[in-house]
């Protein structure tokens, strides 16, 4: 006589139903393993999706050109570098910043050398579209304001100088740059492809030359080109920028850094995934242990069931179903906890939530597999008992 699937499920739930605390504790081991697996796959996936979104938004066609550092001071790029790069065919945009070696202070009462770790850069008016930046307040340097003592603050610079917003219509706040007062025209949002701008204060190119003694040599060029020609442009940039000494020009692709960050997160995730596998294994051993104890304790019940007509296969099935039920509880709870943790962390980091479906499904499937494997030995032991031995226990 065969047991119906419903009967097998009811038999499998009998043990956990009558020994709730024990069932919960043995399922907990599995739950921790599964939750860890989902967290270590879900968090890198979410951060990866956030990075992908950033890459898609800011593009991968940006190149950054800067002089190789020689000694203390980097060799400046030629003043006409921007014009030369603009003439390269596939280049669509080019902009530049230059370090003017000045100190920015919140007020003139602060020590003249205390620049809060910020850099004063001369910036071209076309910088913002080139680096994919945007403003969170005010406006960027324009052809009109670039000639006057006006600054735009990077995100970190604004925070360090104590400005989190600009009140429209109110007189703009002032900061001291190189002992002159500059008015704050705008505040930038963080720029993922040019993070050094975050800690910078940007002044107009002409204003820097006129008021801060800037010599007109750019420090960093930002170059956008057609996507299909990025590598070609990258190859010709050093010679274009500095025909005499192309070896002193370094070209990098900022989006590579984001991609590398993603790859690094993946490698770390693989390591922790291994650890999660180990904890799942330990959980499985816990379930097997509980099942062996359960078989020992329930020998009389096994004998009774044999007396009531259960054959060896049905006894085996009952204990296997119980082991799978314990693991399934653990798997479900772990999946819930894991998904909750990923949602919580991703939301906190303002990332889109991404849980690979194979991780959620595989976690649950893995738990069931662990349940089957953990249950085989106890179930076989239970079935091997003869009715007389079992009843005499």
């Amino acid at each position, binding site marked *: *006589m*065969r*047991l*119906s699937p*419903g*009967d097998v499920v*009811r038999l499998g739930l*009998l043990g956990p*139903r*009558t*020994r709730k605390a024990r069932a919960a504790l043995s399922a907990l081991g599995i739950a921790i393993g599964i939750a860890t697996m989902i967290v270590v796959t879900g968090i890198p996936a979410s951060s990866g999706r956030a990075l992908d979104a950033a890459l898609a938004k800011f593009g991968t066609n940006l190149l950054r050109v800067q002089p190789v550092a020689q000694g203390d001071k980097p060799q400046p790029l030629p003043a006409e570098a921007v014009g030369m790069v603009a003439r390269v065919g596939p280049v669509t945009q080019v902009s530049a910043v230059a370090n003017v070696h000045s100190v920015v202070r919140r007020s003139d009462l602060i020590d003249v050398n205390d620049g809060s770790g910020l850099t004063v850069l001369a910036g071209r008016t076309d910088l913002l579209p080139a680096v994919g930046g945007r403003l969170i307040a005010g406006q960027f340097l324009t052809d009109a304001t670039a000639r006057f003592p006006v600054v735009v603050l990077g995100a970190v610079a604004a925070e360090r100088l104590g400005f989190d917003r600009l009140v429209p219509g109110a007189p703009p706040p002032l900061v001291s740059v190189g002992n002159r007062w500059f008015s704050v025209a705008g505040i930038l949002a963080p720029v993922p492809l040019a993070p050094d701008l975050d800690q910078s204060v940007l002044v107009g190119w002409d204003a820097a030359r006129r008021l801060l003694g800037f010599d007109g040599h750019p420090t960093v060029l930002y170059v956008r080109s057609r996507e299909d020609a990025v590598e070609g442009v990258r190859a010709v940039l050093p010679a274009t920028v500095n025909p005499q000494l192309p070896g002193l020009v370094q070209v990098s692709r900022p989006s590579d850094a984001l991609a590398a960050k993603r790859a690094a997160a993946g490698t770390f995730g693989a390591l922790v995934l291994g650890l999660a596998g180990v904890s799942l294994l330990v959980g499985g051993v816990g379930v097997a242990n509980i099942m062996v104890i359960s078989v020992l304790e329930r020998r*009389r*019940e096994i*004998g*009774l*069931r*044999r*007396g*009531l*007509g*259960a*054959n*060896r*296969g*049905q006894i085996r099935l009952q204990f296997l179903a119980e082991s799978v039920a314990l693991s399934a509880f653990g798997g479900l709870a772990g999946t819930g906890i894991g998904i909750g943790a990923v949602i919580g962390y991703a939301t906190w980091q303002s990332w889109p939530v991404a849980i690979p479906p194979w991780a959620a499904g595989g976690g649950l499937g893995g738990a069931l597999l662990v349940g089957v494997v953990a249950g085989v030995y106890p179930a076989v032991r239970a079935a091997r008992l*003869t*009715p*007389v031995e079992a*009843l005499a226990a």
Partner: protein
Amino acid sequence: MTDVLSVENVTREYPGGVTALDRVDLRIAAGELLAIVGPSGSGKSTLLNIMGTLDLPSRGTVRIGGDDVTLLSDRKLSDLRGKRLGFVFQQFHLVDGMSAVENVATGLLYAGVRHRKRAPLAAAALERVGLGHRLGHLPHQLSGGEKQRVAIARALVNDPALILADEPTGALDTANGQAVLALLSDLNREGATIAVITHDREIADRLPRRVTIRDGRIVADSGRPACG
């Protein structure tokens, strides 16, 4: 009248040369109520195990409803136990955490009765043993006598050809023991075939047929009553 069970020339030896049963012959006809009585160590529990197919003889034949059980596979033997035999144990053997009606319904589980039909049949069996008001009680909420009546309901719910009761009053006080015996007699009058294994002569004397066993041999059989 047909035999529900026949034991022919059965010997059961254990490793080490212990002979628990020695060439035992016993036939039980449908509708009988008999006692298998003997002191402890006489082999009556071994005989019960062999009659109940929980154990197999070293030599000899056991037939239940005409089938030679020594030739059956585990699956067929289990099937036969589930459909044609009912057991009542001294220690009741109710499953903790399952209500009275669930415990009784377990008696139908392995006989292939569908889930939907089990609970009503189990409730009817409990009604029959006078526990209609205790259907949802858990074993620890029942008295000893009530537990044994639940166990009896579980044994008879499937309408077996033979009920084997191993010291059914052994764990009960006198009053509850008498009540259980009276219940078994009532069930027998309603048609059930019941074999009671006991060491208690007094209990045996109250039953229509007594088979006395000593040192693994049947030494006396009062025989089937004339009315049969």
